[in-house]
Protein backbone atom coordinates (compact mmCIF):
# COMPACT_ATOMS: atom_id res chain seq x y z
CA UNK A 1 0.00 0.00 0.00
CA UNK A 2 1.32 3.47 -0.90
CA UNK A 3 0.80 5.72 2.12
CA UNK A 4 1.14 9.20 0.60
CA UNK A 5 1.33 10.96 -2.77
CA UNK A 6 5.06 11.69 -2.43
CA UNK A 7 5.73 8.03 -1.74
CA UNK A 8 3.75 7.24 -4.90
CA UNK A 9 6.02 9.63 -6.82
CA UNK A 10 9.14 7.94 -5.50
CA UNK A 11 7.70 4.54 -6.40
CA UNK A 12 6.97 5.90 -9.89
CA UNK A 13 10.58 7.06 -10.11
CA UNK A 14 11.72 3.57 -9.08
CA UNK A 15 9.72 2.36 -12.07
CA UNK A 16 11.61 4.70 -14.41
CA UNK A 17 9.47 7.85 -14.36
CA UNK A 18 12.10 10.61 -14.22
CA UNK A 19 9.49 13.37 -14.15
CA UNK A 20 8.27 11.98 -10.80
CA UNK A 21 11.64 12.80 -9.24
CA UNK A 22 11.54 16.27 -10.73
CA UNK A 23 8.12 16.78 -9.14
CA UNK A 24 9.47 15.66 -5.76
CA UNK A 25 12.20 18.28 -5.96
CA UNK A 26 9.69 20.95 -6.98
CA UNK A 27 7.56 20.05 -3.97
CA UNK A 28 10.27 19.73 -1.34
CA UNK A 29 13.39 21.45 -2.68
CA UNK A 30 12.70 24.88 -1.16
CA UNK A 31 11.67 23.45 2.20
CA UNK A 32 14.87 21.42 2.18
CA UNK A 33 16.98 24.54 1.53
CA UNK A 34 15.25 26.20 4.50
CA UNK A 35 15.86 23.13 6.68
CA UNK A 36 19.54 23.04 5.76
CA UNK A 37 19.81 26.78 6.38
CA UNK A 38 19.06 26.12 10.08
CA UNK A 39 22.36 24.26 10.24
CA UNK A 40 24.74 26.33 8.14
CA UNK A 41 23.35 29.93 8.24
CA UNK A 42 24.64 30.47 4.74
CA UNK A 43 22.21 30.65 1.82
CA UNK A 44 24.45 29.26 -0.92
CA UNK A 45 25.80 26.47 1.31
CA UNK A 46 22.22 25.63 2.36
CA UNK A 47 21.24 25.22 -1.29
CA UNK A 48 24.28 23.06 -1.93
CA UNK A 49 23.38 20.85 1.04
CA UNK A 50 19.76 20.57 -0.12
CA UNK A 51 21.03 19.48 -3.54
CA UNK A 52 23.28 16.92 -1.84
CA UNK A 53 20.24 15.56 0.01
CA UNK A 54 18.29 15.12 -3.21
CA UNK A 55 21.27 13.53 -4.93
CA UNK A 56 21.42 11.06 -2.05
CA UNK A 57 17.68 10.52 -2.37
CA UNK A 58 18.17 9.88 -6.08
CA UNK A 59 20.80 7.25 -5.28
CA UNK A 60 18.84 5.75 -2.35
CA UNK A 61 15.51 5.61 -4.20
CA UNK A 62 15.89 1.92 -5.18
CA UNK A 63 16.08 1.04 -1.46
CA UNK A 64 12.92 2.96 -0.56
CA UNK A 65 9.97 0.85 0.58
CA UNK A 66 6.63 2.65 0.60
CA UNK A 67 5.91 1.39 4.13
CA UNK A 68 7.88 4.42 5.36
CA UNK A 69 6.44 7.89 4.86
CA UNK A 70 8.31 9.79 2.17
CA UNK A 71 8.88 12.79 4.45
CA UNK A 72 10.41 10.55 7.10
CA UNK A 73 12.72 8.99 4.51
CA UNK A 74 13.72 12.39 3.08
CA UNK A 75 14.36 14.03 6.45
CA UNK A 76 16.31 11.04 7.70
CA UNK A 77 18.73 11.55 4.80
CA UNK A 78 18.73 15.30 5.41
CA UNK A 79 19.25 15.04 9.18
CA UNK A 80 22.20 12.69 8.73
CA UNK A 81 23.69 14.92 6.07
CA UNK A 82 23.27 18.07 8.17
CA UNK A 83 24.74 16.35 11.24
CA UNK A 84 27.77 15.40 9.18
CA UNK A 85 27.94 18.96 7.91
CA UNK A 86 27.84 20.26 11.48
CA UNK A 87 30.81 18.07 12.35
CA UNK A 88 32.69 19.27 9.28
CA UNK A 89 31.51 22.83 9.97
CA UNK A 90 32.84 22.82 13.50
CA UNK A 91 36.26 22.07 12.09
CA UNK A 92 35.86 24.69 9.35
CA UNK A 93 34.52 27.32 11.77
CA UNK A 94 37.66 27.01 13.85
CA UNK A 95 39.67 27.75 10.71
CA UNK A 96 37.28 30.37 9.29
CA UNK A 97 35.48 32.41 11.99
CA UNK A 98 32.61 34.73 11.03
CA UNK A 99 31.14 32.39 8.41
CA UNK A 100 27.40 32.93 7.90
CA UNK A 101 24.80 35.01 6.14
CA UNK A 102 25.67 38.57 5.22
CA UNK A 103 23.82 41.29 7.20
CA UNK A 104 21.52 42.02 4.25
CA UNK A 105 20.35 38.38 4.33
CA UNK A 106 19.50 38.74 8.01
CA UNK A 107 17.54 41.86 7.08
CA UNK A 108 15.23 39.69 5.01
CA UNK A 109 14.38 37.75 8.15
CA UNK A 110 12.79 40.81 9.72
CA UNK A 111 9.98 40.70 7.16
CA UNK A 112 8.61 43.34 4.82
CA UNK A 113 6.52 46.30 5.90
CA UNK A 114 8.06 46.38 9.39
CA UNK A 115 9.00 49.57 11.21
CA UNK A 116 12.74 50.16 11.78
CA UNK A 117 12.29 49.11 15.41
CA UNK A 118 10.49 45.93 14.41
CA UNK A 119 13.17 45.21 11.83
CA UNK A 120 15.91 45.67 14.40
CA UNK A 121 14.06 43.45 16.88
CA UNK A 122 13.46 40.82 14.19
CA UNK A 123 17.17 40.79 13.32
CA UNK A 124 18.15 40.55 16.97
CA UNK A 125 15.70 37.68 17.50
CA UNK A 126 17.00 35.87 14.42
CA UNK A 127 20.57 36.31 15.65
CA UNK A 128 19.64 35.06 19.12
CA UNK A 129 18.02 31.96 17.58
CA UNK A 130 21.05 31.36 15.37
CA UNK A 131 23.33 31.60 18.39
CA UNK A 132 21.07 29.29 20.34
CA UNK A 133 21.09 26.71 17.53
CA UNK A 134 24.87 26.91 17.33
CA UNK A 135 25.14 26.18 21.06
CA UNK A 136 22.78 23.21 21.15
CA UNK A 137 24.23 19.71 21.13
CA UNK A 138 23.78 18.28 17.65
CA UNK A 139 20.96 15.80 18.36
CA UNK A 140 19.03 18.40 20.34
CA UNK A 141 19.50 20.80 17.47
CA UNK A 142 18.10 18.40 14.88
CA UNK A 143 15.14 17.42 17.08
CA UNK A 144 14.47 21.09 17.88
CA UNK A 145 14.57 22.17 14.22
CA UNK A 146 12.30 19.31 13.17
CA UNK A 147 9.85 20.18 15.95
CA UNK A 148 9.85 23.98 15.95
CA UNK A 149 10.50 24.79 12.30
CA UNK A 150 9.30 21.72 10.39
CA UNK A 151 6.27 21.18 12.63
CA UNK A 152 6.87 17.46 13.11
CA UNK A 153 5.27 15.46 15.91
CA UNK A 154 7.46 13.68 18.46
CA UNK A 155 6.52 10.37 16.80
CA UNK A 156 7.64 11.59 13.39
CA UNK A 157 10.89 12.97 14.78
CA UNK A 158 11.52 9.63 16.50
CA UNK A 159 11.06 7.90 13.13
CA UNK A 160 13.45 10.33 11.40
CA UNK A 161 16.13 9.98 14.08
CA UNK A 162 15.51 6.26 14.59
CA UNK A 163 14.98 6.73 18.29
CA UNK A 164 12.16 6.53 20.83
CA UNK A 165 9.43 9.06 21.55
CA UNK A 166 10.63 9.52 25.18
CA UNK A 167 14.12 10.27 23.84
CA UNK A 168 12.67 12.89 21.48
CA UNK A 169 10.60 14.35 24.31
CA UNK A 170 13.78 14.78 26.32
CA UNK A 171 15.74 16.31 23.41
CA UNK A 172 12.99 18.76 22.51
CA UNK A 173 12.40 19.63 26.16
CA UNK A 174 16.03 20.50 26.87
CA UNK A 175 16.40 22.51 23.66
CA UNK A 176 13.17 24.42 24.24
CA UNK A 177 14.08 25.26 27.84
CA UNK A 178 17.41 26.56 26.51
CA UNK A 179 15.43 28.63 23.97
CA UNK A 180 13.24 30.03 26.76
CA UNK A 181 16.35 31.21 28.59
CA UNK A 182 17.99 32.62 25.44
CA UNK A 183 14.87 34.45 24.30
CA UNK A 184 13.72 35.70 27.71
CA UNK A 185 15.06 39.25 26.99
CA UNK A 186 12.58 39.52 24.10
CA UNK A 187 9.59 38.84 26.35
CA UNK A 188 9.70 42.35 27.83
CA UNK A 189 10.32 43.92 24.41
CA UNK A 190 13.63 45.39 25.55
CA UNK A 191 15.90 43.30 23.28
CA UNK A 192 16.81 44.82 19.91
Amino acid at each position, binding site marked *: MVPDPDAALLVAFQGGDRSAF*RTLFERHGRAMVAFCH*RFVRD*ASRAEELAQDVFLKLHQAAPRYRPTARFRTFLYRIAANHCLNELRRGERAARAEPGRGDAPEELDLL*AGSGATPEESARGRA*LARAVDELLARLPEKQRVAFVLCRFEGMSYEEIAAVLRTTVPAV*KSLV*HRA*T*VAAAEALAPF*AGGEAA
Partner: protein
Amino acid sequence: MRHVASDLVALLDGALADEERARVEAHLAGCGPCRAQRDRIAAAIGFLASLPPPADPAPGLEERFQARLAREADRPRGLLSRVPWRIAAPLAAAGAVAAAVAVAVVRERRAEAFAAEHLELFERYELVASIGDVADEDAEVVAHLDELEGRR
Protein backbone atom coordinates in the same frame (compact mmCIF):
# COMPACT_ATOMS: atom_id res chain seq x y z
CA MET B 1 4.35 18.30 45.83
CA ARG B 2 6.17 17.15 42.69
CA HIS B 3 6.74 19.95 40.19
CA VAL B 4 6.03 19.37 36.53
CA ALA B 5 8.83 21.34 34.84
CA SER B 6 9.93 18.32 32.81
CA ASP B 7 6.44 17.97 31.28
CA LEU B 8 5.77 21.59 30.36
CA VAL B 9 7.25 21.52 26.85
CA ALA B 10 5.37 18.32 26.01
CA LEU B 11 2.20 19.86 27.46
CA LEU B 12 2.54 22.93 25.21
CA ASP B 13 3.32 20.69 22.23
CA GLY B 14 0.16 18.66 22.86
CA ALA B 15 2.28 15.55 23.31
CA LEU B 16 0.95 14.36 26.68
CA ALA B 17 -1.58 11.58 27.06
CA ASP B 18 -4.93 12.68 28.52
CA GLU B 19 -4.17 11.38 32.01
CA GLU B 20 -0.74 13.03 32.13
CA ARG B 21 -2.12 16.28 30.82
CA ALA B 22 -4.82 16.32 33.51
CA ARG B 23 -2.20 15.70 36.20
CA VAL B 24 0.08 18.49 34.91
CA GLU B 25 -2.78 20.96 34.54
CA ALA B 26 -4.00 20.20 38.05
CA HIS B 27 -0.51 20.91 39.36
CA LEU B 28 -0.26 24.16 37.39
CA ALA B 29 -3.52 25.39 38.89
CA GLY B 30 -1.85 25.50 42.29
CA CYS B 31 1.81 26.19 41.52
CA GLY B 32 2.94 29.70 40.62
CA PRO B 33 6.60 28.86 39.79
CA CYS B 34 5.53 26.11 37.35
CA ARG B 35 2.98 28.45 35.76
CA ALA B 36 5.68 31.11 35.33
CA GLN B 37 8.00 28.57 33.72
CA ARG B 38 5.20 27.41 31.41
CA ASP B 39 4.62 31.03 30.37
CA ARG B 40 8.33 31.58 29.64
CA ILE B 41 8.44 28.44 27.49
CA ALA B 42 5.19 29.38 25.74
CA ALA B 43 6.60 32.84 24.96
CA ALA B 44 9.77 31.30 23.48
CA ILE B 45 7.72 28.91 21.33
CA GLY B 46 5.71 31.92 20.18
CA PHE B 47 8.86 33.86 19.24
CA LEU B 48 10.18 30.90 17.30
CA ALA B 49 6.89 30.52 15.45
CA SER B 50 6.95 34.23 14.58
CA LEU B 51 10.30 33.99 12.81
CA PRO B 52 9.88 34.15 9.06
CA PRO B 53 11.40 31.21 7.19
CA PRO B 54 14.90 31.69 5.79
CA ALA B 55 15.00 33.74 2.60
CA ASP B 56 13.95 31.90 -0.54
CA PRO B 57 16.77 30.61 -2.73
CA ALA B 58 17.58 32.59 -5.86
CA PRO B 59 15.30 31.91 -8.85
CA GLY B 60 16.25 28.85 -10.88
CA LEU B 61 16.64 26.42 -7.97
CA GLU B 62 15.09 23.53 -9.90
CA GLU B 63 17.18 24.21 -13.00
CA ARG B 64 20.40 24.37 -10.98
CA PHE B 65 19.58 21.07 -9.32
CA GLN B 66 18.67 19.36 -12.59
CA ALA B 67 21.94 20.59 -14.11
CA ARG B 68 23.90 19.18 -11.15
CA LEU B 69 21.99 15.90 -11.37
CA ALA B 70 22.91 15.66 -15.05
CA ARG B 71 26.57 16.41 -14.27
CA GLU B 72 26.63 13.74 -11.57
CA ALA B 73 25.02 11.24 -13.95
CA ASP B 74 27.65 11.98 -16.61
CA ARG B 75 30.53 11.59 -14.19
CA PRO B 76 32.47 8.37 -14.85
CA ARG B 77 31.75 5.89 -12.10
CA GLY B 78 33.58 2.83 -10.89
CA LEU B 79 32.46 -0.67 -11.80
CA LEU B 80 31.05 -1.34 -8.31
CA SER B 81 28.88 1.78 -8.43
CA ARG B 82 27.14 0.43 -11.54
CA VAL B 83 26.39 -2.88 -9.87
CA PRO B 84 23.24 -3.14 -7.68
CA TRP B 85 24.18 -2.80 -4.01
CA ARG B 86 22.86 -6.27 -3.13
CA ILE B 87 25.50 -7.69 -5.44
CA ALA B 88 28.14 -5.02 -4.86
CA ALA B 89 28.21 -5.41 -1.07
CA PRO B 90 29.05 -9.17 -1.04
CA LEU B 91 31.51 -8.59 -3.90
CA ALA B 92 33.27 -5.87 -1.94
CA ALA B 93 33.36 -8.07 1.18
CA ALA B 94 34.76 -11.00 -0.81
CA GLY B 95 37.33 -8.68 -2.37
CA ALA B 96 38.45 -7.49 1.06
CA VAL B 97 38.84 -11.08 2.31
CA ALA B 98 40.77 -12.06 -0.83
CA ALA B 99 43.09 -9.05 -0.41
CA ALA B 100 43.74 -9.96 3.24
CA VAL B 101 44.51 -13.56 2.29
CA ALA B 102 46.81 -12.41 -0.54
CA VAL B 103 48.74 -10.11 1.82
CA ALA B 104 49.13 -12.93 4.36
CA VAL B 105 50.34 -15.36 1.67
CA VAL B 106 52.85 -12.86 0.27
CA ARG B 107 54.22 -12.15 3.75
CA GLU B 108 54.58 -15.86 4.46
CA ARG B 109 56.34 -16.44 1.12
CA ARG B 110 58.72 -13.57 1.83
CA ALA B 111 59.50 -15.03 5.25
CA GLU B 112 60.14 -18.45 3.67
CA ALA B 113 62.33 -16.91 0.97
CA PHE B 114 64.27 -15.03 3.59
CA ALA B 115 64.75 -18.20 5.61
CA ALA B 116 65.94 -20.07 2.50
CA GLU B 117 68.45 -17.35 1.63
CA HIS B 118 69.82 -17.16 5.17
CA LEU B 119 69.61 -20.84 6.09
CA GLU B 120 73.30 -20.93 6.81
CA LEU B 121 73.01 -18.14 9.33
CA PHE B 122 69.98 -19.71 10.94
CA GLU B 123 71.81 -22.99 11.38
CA ARG B 124 74.96 -21.31 12.58
CA TYR B 125 73.40 -19.05 15.16
CA GLU B 126 70.75 -20.57 17.30
CA LEU B 127 69.41 -17.16 18.14
CA VAL B 128 66.24 -17.38 16.16
CA ALA B 129 63.71 -19.76 17.54
CA SER B 130 61.11 -19.27 14.86
CA ILE B 131 61.23 -17.69 11.43
CA GLY B 132 57.80 -16.21 12.15
CA ASP B 133 59.45 -13.91 14.68
CA VAL B 134 62.06 -12.57 12.29
CA ALA B 135 61.70 -8.92 11.52
CA ASP B 136 63.90 -7.04 9.05
CA GLU B 137 65.89 -5.52 11.94
CA ASP B 138 66.47 -9.00 13.43
CA ALA B 139 67.73 -10.20 10.06
CA GLU B 140 70.20 -7.30 9.93
CA VAL B 141 71.55 -8.30 13.31
CA VAL B 142 71.77 -11.95 12.31
CA ALA B 143 73.51 -11.07 9.05
CA HIS B 144 76.17 -9.04 10.85
CA LEU B 145 76.71 -11.25 13.89
CA ASP B 146 80.11 -12.29 12.55
CA GLU B 147 81.25 -8.68 12.47
CA LEU B 148 79.76 -7.98 15.89
CA GLU B 149 81.51 -11.01 17.32
CA GLY B 150 84.75 -9.94 15.68
CA ARG B 151 84.66 -6.59 17.51
CA ARG B 152 84.59 -8.20 20.90
